[in-house]
């Protein structure tokens, strides 16, 4: 995350000053977008979630304490918005299998990658988010815990559950260790 914003900017933002809000947007947009993209993994969806995040930030400005970290606050809001997106995400045609009861064909690397991606997308949102951040992006557990507002031990147990669920699903789809 970028350096913490100037105190005057934060106080202006809390008062509802649009100029201050735009300065915060310009300062944090890129990092927040990168964080959201790591979770939702689709550019167009990440753009929608970014707009939703800054809308929630604006709506909740009166609750923000300017003495606390704006970066940590917005990351938590972004994580929750991304999680909400995962909860409502519907598989597009490319994610659907012809027959869920049959293992996917493994004719090429692309097929294998599609199968792995499909197994990942089938994880429940609370597991998918930790799998994306911990396994794919290798973010520290403490950072993930802070962004999700849960204890580090809960992150560890969700990574364990996500790993187990993915392993079972991959084996079911014909990919074995």
């Amino acid at each position, binding site marked *: 995350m970028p350096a913490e914003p100037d105190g005057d900017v934060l106080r202006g933002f809390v008062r509802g000053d649009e100029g201050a809000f735009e300065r915060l947007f310009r300062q944090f947009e890129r990092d927040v977008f990168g964080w959201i993209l790591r979770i939702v993994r689709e550019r167009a969806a990440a753009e929608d979630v970014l*707009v939703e995040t800054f809308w929630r930030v604006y709506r909740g400005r009166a609750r923000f304490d300017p003495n606390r970290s704006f970066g940590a606050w917005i990351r938590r809001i972004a994580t929750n918005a991304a999680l909400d997106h995962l909860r409502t995400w519907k598989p597009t045609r490319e994610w659907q299998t012809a027959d869920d009861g049959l293992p996917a064909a493994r004719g090429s690397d692309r097929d294998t990658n599609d199968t792995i991606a499909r197994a990942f997308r089938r994880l429940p949102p609370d597991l998918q988010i930790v*799998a994306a951040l911990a396994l794919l992006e290798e973010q520290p557990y403490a950072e993930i815990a802070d962004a999700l507002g849960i204890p580090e031990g809960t992150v560890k147990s969700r990574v364990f559950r996500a790993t187990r669920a993915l392993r079972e699903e991959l084996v079911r789809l014909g990919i074995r260790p």
Partner: protein
Amino acid sequence: MNDINDEDWVRRLLQSALPPLNSVTPSRDLWPDVVRRSQRPARWTSVDSSLAAVVLLALLLFPKWFWFLAYHL
């Protein structure tokens, strides 16, 4: 296979199928979208409707609650 090996195997597979997304930026300036979103009037949701119905019903059944609700709203 133990848990650590499982995690390594799953991690390697995921990273090969879904490569890290570094240095990707939004395709356009999203500030105008944020402004439009923040100026849009709040939507009346089904939760809002249910709450309004409950309050109305409570006031019809117990008119004396009006002052209690007026104090808290």
